[in-house]
């Protein structure tokens, strides 16, 4: 029976790990992630979850323990934020290089120094090149649904890669909202028991991840790239299938809102996607042809979808809750990169907003949109990157 609960996105992540019948959890506390692993600890200790819970001494060990467990053939889960994710960095490479379908909730938090516990996406975006699939969620329900979908995707033999399911700290992590938890039997049917691609097996004794010479290394990298391309094809299918079964669907790689006839599309990630929709509603009422596109999957990057979006649009304005110092936001860079070789490419302007938890509302996005529309009227973008609501 479908159960409707009112709970935080972090607890929903815990419910998702339980619904996915995760077998090993290795976790370490960090704000704002902690309530996920607290919830799971409750589930395990009160017998609602048949799983091993390893209370490791660091995030680095959390990821490596997940690698060890996944290599032994079971479904694994962990969660972290910011510094914890950065500490995991080399292990993230090891997980994807070992082709282990670990799923991790990343509760986005700004990186120190200076200390901040508030959200931005620089923690997970800094892990862009680790070979992990990256999802970004806009609400509590999507956090639950995406974790289930992520296992389905990652464990597909055409993929066998790990995934981060990212949700912004506090905006989602600690915010109560209604959400539906589908019937367990239906989830089991959608997400059958994990079948490992390889496993540490005394009857098939191999050295796993041993030294690889230049004659072979590139092929292993190419296979990861192929797996990412496969993931790009599979994600929309899985999203659709999930939608049919459970009634929630997120547009696959990119959630589009009133983009068909839009002159300007606001391109966002995470919760800003919801604010962008509100901004679009308001702007449409005022007669502006504006749409919103939320990049739900950042790795693999939806290059083709972005290019398609641009076909009938005069301008794309990206909003990054992130900055790659010395350049611009990744979303801006990669949006531009997706368009470069196309004829009639639209203008692209990049906005940096909401770093370290600075509030971004629909009104903020409305202002960005209006600024962007000025560029359309003059036919050029004056400033490639604009920081929004910066103190003078």
């Amino acid at each position: 029976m479908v159960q409707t609960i009112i709970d935080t996105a972090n607890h929903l992540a815990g419910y998702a790990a339980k619904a996915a019948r995760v077998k090993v959890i290795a976790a370490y506390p960090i704000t704002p992630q902690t309530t996920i692993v607290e919830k799971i600890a409750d589930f395990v200790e009160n017998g609602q979850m048949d799983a091993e819970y390893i209370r490791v001494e660091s995030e680095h060990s959390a990821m490596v323990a997940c690698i060890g467990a996944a290599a032994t053939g079971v479904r694994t889960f962990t969660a972290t934020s910011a510094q914890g994710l950065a500490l995991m960095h080399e292990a993230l490479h090891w997980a994807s290089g070992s082709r282990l379908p670990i799923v991790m909730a990343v509760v986005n938090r700004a990186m120190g120094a200076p200390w901040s516990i508030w959200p931005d996406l620089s923690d997970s975006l800094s892990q862009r090149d680790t070979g992990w699939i990256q999802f970004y969620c806009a609400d509590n329900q999507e956090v639950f649904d995406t974790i289930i979908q992520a296992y389905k995707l990652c464990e597909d033999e055409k993929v066998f890669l790990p995934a981060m399911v990212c949700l912004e700290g506090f905006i989602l992590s600690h915010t109560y909202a209604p959400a539906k938890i589908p019937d367990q039997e239906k989830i089991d049917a959608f997400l059958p028991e994990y079948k490992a691609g390889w496993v540490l097996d005394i009857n098939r004794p191999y050295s796993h991840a041993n030294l690889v010479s230049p004659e072979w290394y590139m092929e292993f990298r190419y296979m990861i790239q192929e797996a990412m391309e496969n993931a790009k094809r599979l994600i929309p299918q899985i999203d659709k299938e999930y939608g049919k079964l459970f009634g929630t669907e997120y547009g696959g790689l990119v959630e589009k809102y009133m983009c068909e006839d839009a002159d300007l599309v606001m391109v966002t990630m995470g919760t800003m996607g919801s604010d962008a929709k509100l901004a679009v509603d308001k702007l449409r009422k005022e007669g502006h042809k504006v749409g919103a596109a939320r990049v739900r999957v950042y790795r693999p990057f939806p290059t083709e979808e972005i290019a398609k979006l641009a076909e009938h649009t005069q301008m794309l304005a990206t909003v990054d809750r992130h900055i790659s110092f010395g350049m611009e936001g990744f979303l801006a860079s990669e949006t531009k990169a997706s368009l470069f070789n196309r004829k009639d490419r639209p203008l692209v302007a990049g906005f940096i907003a909401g770093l370290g938890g600075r509030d971004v509302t629909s009104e903020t996005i409305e202002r960005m949109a209006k600024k962007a529309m000025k560029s359309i009227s003059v036919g050029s973008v004056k400033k490639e990157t604009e920081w929004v609501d910066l103190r003078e």
Partner: protein
Amino acid sequence: MVTIKELSKEEYLLKGHAACAGCGPAVSLRLLFKALGNKIILVVPACCTTVIQGPYPFTSSAVPLQNILFESTGAAASGIVAALRQRKIEDITVVGWAGDGGTVDIGIQALSGAAERGTDFIYICYDNEAYGNTGMQRSGATPYGAWTTTTPSGKKERKKDMPLIMAAHRIPYVATACTSYPLDFVNKLRKAKDMKGTKYIHLLAPCPTGWRYDTSKTVEMGRLAVQSGLWVLYEIENGKFRLNVPSDRLVDKTKRKPVKDYFATQGRFRGLTEEDIQRIQKWVDEDWEQYGKLTSNNASDLAMHGKI
């Protein structure tokens, strides 16, 4: 207690491995397999065994071997043990096999965490007293006075006493061993295999390449280390300390060879002055007074803490 005749004839360290001639760790790895059989999963961080096992698509290990990050043997083993338990597989022993750098320096956190959690596995630190795989740089296990490429005039600090650090975790079994005493090592591994919880064995494994001695002298080097009392064979079983053969006969100072005999055999100690040697001899003698007390008390965990 196993005898040499009873040792398994099976070879799980396969021919064609890539160890240096005279490699102590390779000799001991072969023995480890003989002691534990092939129902094991070996966890290997960055260390000489990364090379010894051979490159893809080959392997010299006839047991499943998980290569893992330098500092993370304890964590990887924790994950494997947990997953085996979930899969209700009870007859496989998880074994961490790591060098001294990967144990006493960069890997100490993950190992300490795994031990504190009581992870059911055997961890062996094969100690060649430096970062051998990268060409002999100083580690926390390098002894005082030894030349390494990063201590060209000799290390100024003493060797970290890792077995006692592990004993402080109150794990059921801590033991020392040495490549040159194969049956002692085999028996300790077998004992460890039959115990639950974290078992730690610190194996002194001579390294001709780094220690600068002839490749035919590996066994001799280990013996001298033990006979001079610089390396002590003991075990701490459920908190009870016990010296093992032949270290148990060395409480009497006159039975121990002078440490200078050991130093004279290795190029890495060429820079030791007479003063250095006297200083080290004094340290060794002081340590042995403690070992003597532990033995005469018939040992206890309290005594161990006294030593610390």
